[in-house]
């Protein structure tokens, strides 16, 4: 169980469509989701906060374990199997969500200890965590590619739900990237406004769908994907809140739904 031993074992674990792999990544996801043990940040038998943060490797292993490295995650997110893509995206989402919680707790502790930028140990650990986490996650373009991928098979209920799930998971990851790795995002030309337009268009397009499906079937598909559409919109709005590259004024002047909303309630943007 020692960290040293596991680090020395170097095995390649290909993401693949196998029941064992899917179970294992689900178990890993559950373990990553465990709450942060905030009690351990206090000194033993005391209510005072420990002036030293826990070791970097331990903290990272609890949110982005070494097995969830850049190669593994990139392969999973670019897999030909949608199920493998989705499982990998969920695992990465859990890891980034945990990292977000850890950074929040560490910042609170640094504030409580009145640490200074130059010599604060907790602040230094936060900085190190951000840098190391950046190295472990896939490139931003991989996530963008996942969000922008198109359905390949015939338009049916299964295909629609599959694409809606993948799109939702991808947008959630984009939001986390904007929140946690703003430097990575700012280095890449990315039109966040396009996402907004897509998110406020339903994932099932009735005019295109009616060519191959009946009206009733299109209505049924739209109903199935409505919940996911709401989530997608939520992720995009959160993402835009974090983004500094987004200019909405000209882009949405002609949009029948968005522009009136922006005009009447600019504060939500």
């Amino acid at each position: 169980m020692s960290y040293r031993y596991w680090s020395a074992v170097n095995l390649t674990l290909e993401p693949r469509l196998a029941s064992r792999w899917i179970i294992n990544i689900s178990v890993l996801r559950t373990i990553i989701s465990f709450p942060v043990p905030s009690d351990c940040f206090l000194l033993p038998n005391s209510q005072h906060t420990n002036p030293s943060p826990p070791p970097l490797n331990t903290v990272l292993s609890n949110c982005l374990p070494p097995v969830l490295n850049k190669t593994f995650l990139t392969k999973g997110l670019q897999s030909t199997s949608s199920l493998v893509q989705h499982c990998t995206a969920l695992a990465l989402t859990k890891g980034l969500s945990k990292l977000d919680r850890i950074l929040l707790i560490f910042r609170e502790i640094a504030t409580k200890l009145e640490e200074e930028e130059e010599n604060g140990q907790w602040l230094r650990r936060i900085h190190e965590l951000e840098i190391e986490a950046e190295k472990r996650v896939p490139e931003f373009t991989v996530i963008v590619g996942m969000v922008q991928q198109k359905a390949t098979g015939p338009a049916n209920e299964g295909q629609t739900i599959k694409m809606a799930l993948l799109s939702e998971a991808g947008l959630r990851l984009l939001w986390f990237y904007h929140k946690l790795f703003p430097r990575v995002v700012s280095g890449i030309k990315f039109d966040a406004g396009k996402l907004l337009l897509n998110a406020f268009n339903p994932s099932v397009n009735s005019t295109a769908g009616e060519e191959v499906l009946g009206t009733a079937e299109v209505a049924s598909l739209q109903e199935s994907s409505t919940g996911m559409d709401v989530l997608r919109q939520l992720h995009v709005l959160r993402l835009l809140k974090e983004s500094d590259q987004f200019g909405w004024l000209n882009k949405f002047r002609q949009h029948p739904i968005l522009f009136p909303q922006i005009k009447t309630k600019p504060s939500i943007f």
Partner: protein
Amino acid sequence: MLAIMTHRGVGICFKDRGWYPRETDSDGTGIGVDPEEDGVNQRGKFYNKILANVVKGLKVNEDPRQQELTFKILQACPELVSGYALYIFLFTSLPTP
């Protein structure tokens, strides 16, 4: 099993220091332990060596009851999580025949 393995300070579930390594200093405050020292001296030191071996033997991906026990042990002993997350992949993710 749940009673003696999943409650901190009861049975064979010893209180650990969470994400901090087992303390080696004499005064027991943890002050003076170099947080940067992830190296040889800090690795492999657990309060819960017995439970570390128990979770390795549990079939987490085959039996729901063993899975539940594993999760409860790991939640009670945060010091074991970082090693275990890697372990399950290295030794149970082999291709299905």
